[in-house]
């Protein structure tokens, strides 16, 4: 009697991007997303999921994350973050993965929220929080082109209310 030890081909889920491109991902990896999980569990025969709000570049990035954490739990990011450098807040792989430009991080976070992937969403938020850590108000306003909406007396009052700067 002979056994067939050949690996059984895993079912693949096809993710359709906003541009209509198809990206394939193994079902076991795709289950990291609660959104995709509910689609698969709700409709047994589903093999294609349409993601009209997410472009293919971001989907590829999400798939990279899904594949990496297919068989293990993502590390928990400490709150509050301890440093403005991501390497000190999370694993080296996560820090390297999220080391992207601001627009990419925002898109990735929106995608993670849509796909209901809380660890990825938290990673993106932690990356964004790093940009705020240890920065003065003026620096933040200048970097993100935010206009000061507070009248001068209100701004003084805000500073007066907070004793934190004493330390």
């Amino acid at each position, binding site marked *: 009697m002979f056994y067939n030890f050949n690996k059984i081909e895993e079912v693949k889920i096809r993710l359709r991007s906003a541009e209509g491109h198809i990206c394939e991902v193994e079902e076991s990896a795709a289950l990291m997303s609660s959104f995709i999980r509910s689609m698969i569990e709700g409709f047994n025969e589903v093999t294609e999921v349409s993601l009209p709000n997410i472009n293919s570049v971001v989907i590829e990035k999400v798939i990279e994350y899904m594949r990496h954490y297919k068989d293990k739990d993502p590390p928990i990011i400490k709150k509050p973050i301890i440093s403005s450098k991501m390497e000190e807040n999370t694993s080296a792989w996560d820090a390297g993965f999220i080391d992207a430009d601001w627009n990419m991080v925002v898109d990735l976070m929106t995608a993670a929220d849509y796909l209901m992937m809380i660890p990825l969403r938290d990673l993106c938020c932690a990356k964004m929080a790093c940009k705020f*850590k240890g920065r003065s108000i003026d620096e933040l306003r200048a970097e993100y082109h935010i*206009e000061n909406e507070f009248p001068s007396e209100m701004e003084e009052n805000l*500073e007066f209310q907070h004793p934190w700067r004493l330390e």
Partner: protein
Amino acid sequence: MNTANILFIIARHLTFRDLLSFGQVNKLFNSVSKKDELWKRECLRVYFGNYDIFGSIYKGDEYLYKPTREPHWRHLLKKLIQTRHSWLLLKGDSFTHDDLDTLRCEVFLTLQEPLLPPPPLRREPKTFPTIIQDLLAHIFEEPSQIGFNLPTESEMIIEGVMNQNLIDEIGDNVSIDQIAIIKWALKGNKCDINKSLSLGSSGNQSTCYSSTGDFDSTLLTTYFQNKMINANPLIIKLFCTLKKTIKIHCVASWNCLNLIEEATELLSEYCLRWDAFCASIYWLDKIFLPFSILINQSYDIHWPNAPKMPPFTVMRLMMIIWRRHVFNKLKDYLLDSIFNLLQSQRNMIVKECPTFKGEINRIIKEDTANIMIKAIQAVVDLSVNELNIYFIDHSGFKGDGEYQLLHEKVLKLTQQFYEEVSSYPYAAQIYILGEDLKLAQRAFLPCTWTKIERMGVEIKIESMKNLYYSEYKQFIPISLTPEEEGLDRFVYSPFGKMLFSNDQSHAASRNIKLYIDYLRIRNRLQEVMDYNNLDALCQKLKQPKLVEDEEIEYQNEQMGLKLEVPPEEQVLFSISNDIHPGQFLAIISAFKTFEG
């Protein structure tokens, strides 16, 4: 997800300092940064560390009707930072800035996440179940330094400073009564530290007596305020700042506890926080021990003839602040929760009784019993002091705090429970009373469980009386001539007397003898002996002094301690009751040694 939600998640990754900058960027950021959840998390992180070493929290299903209100976390955090800032304002010749900073870090770290104190290594027959009781019984005794108990950096700093110039500073520049007054000024409820520190040395001296020579409480308050205002030496400012720090820590603890509505969870978390606070007490008391000794020595030199006083210690200070800001505010709910648990323990004892064959979850029973025992010990901790701690195992012990309330209520509940038990079958009664006594001996002090034991024995005797008398009434003699030999000792024993007291007829003597003979034939004389033993035990329990009590008194009288302490001395030593500086001065003046 909208922008505000995204900003909120980002803000959850920021510390409170970064939240400040975050909230000042623009109006949207500002509104997000005001969410209380962000401040609550930061507040809990800054105030309290990981308490896992002190146990875990257990949740039951008994909800208390307790008004709970979400505290203003942001305000609480602000207070803590202000307190930290007041440490930075401390200045003095004795300490360098770096020394004070090390001390400040040690104090905050000890309060936030204290280490587990090492077990006491003493060759003494008496050991105390809690850290506080052990500390109270060994005031000023240096903890053992075998291997693992090395002095901390702060202790070394304080000892270094003590050896150099602090003693000179106190001896040369400061009126000694300013140091002495700290013993009571720090204990006072309305001592406004900020005012004292900010006003500096201005203010004039006054006495506590009016022009007519009568006692004047307003003048007294002024007197104490002036004493504090003039209190320039760093040692006083240091203790005032320490007091402020401990107070804000206790307020934060109360805020956390006040949010809990479930009885077992409240007790469980209270015990956890109290244990952690006791560990802080242990370490801070040790760190500031040289200062405490200095204050007490100065005091004794200045007022050598004053009545016996409790020594000033950081432990005493911290216990009083905890009692005032946490325990007093929660005590009604804590006591109610203890009574609830006691009731549920008793219900479980009844249920698991072989007569009723009920099934209970033994793990839940043991867990809840342990929480109840811990909570009772926490109440005992705040009901003892340096004088009465030595009599804690005496059956006539009178705690001076909430333990008295607990004791009375428990006895009342026990009376009700035992009345209910007396209607159960005799075998069930024996089992339930036996198990209940075991629980009481584990949970309560001897003054309580000896009374419970007595109540149990009385109930058992009453039930036996009913049982045997009803059998005796229905008894039909099978022989007219009872066995004479050896029966008299049973007839004239408490068992026979019990039957005599219920049967006044002329034939009583003969019938009782026949009844006892009947029991002998049936091999039931052991029951008669059991009744007699129980009666003897009851008589023994009714005696005012047990052998153990006499031993406790004998041992402690050698050290000059008495079970009955005079009221004025008890007032001075009490941790459960506040003493106003006016009361203190009145007691002192009664001794005619006060030089105010």
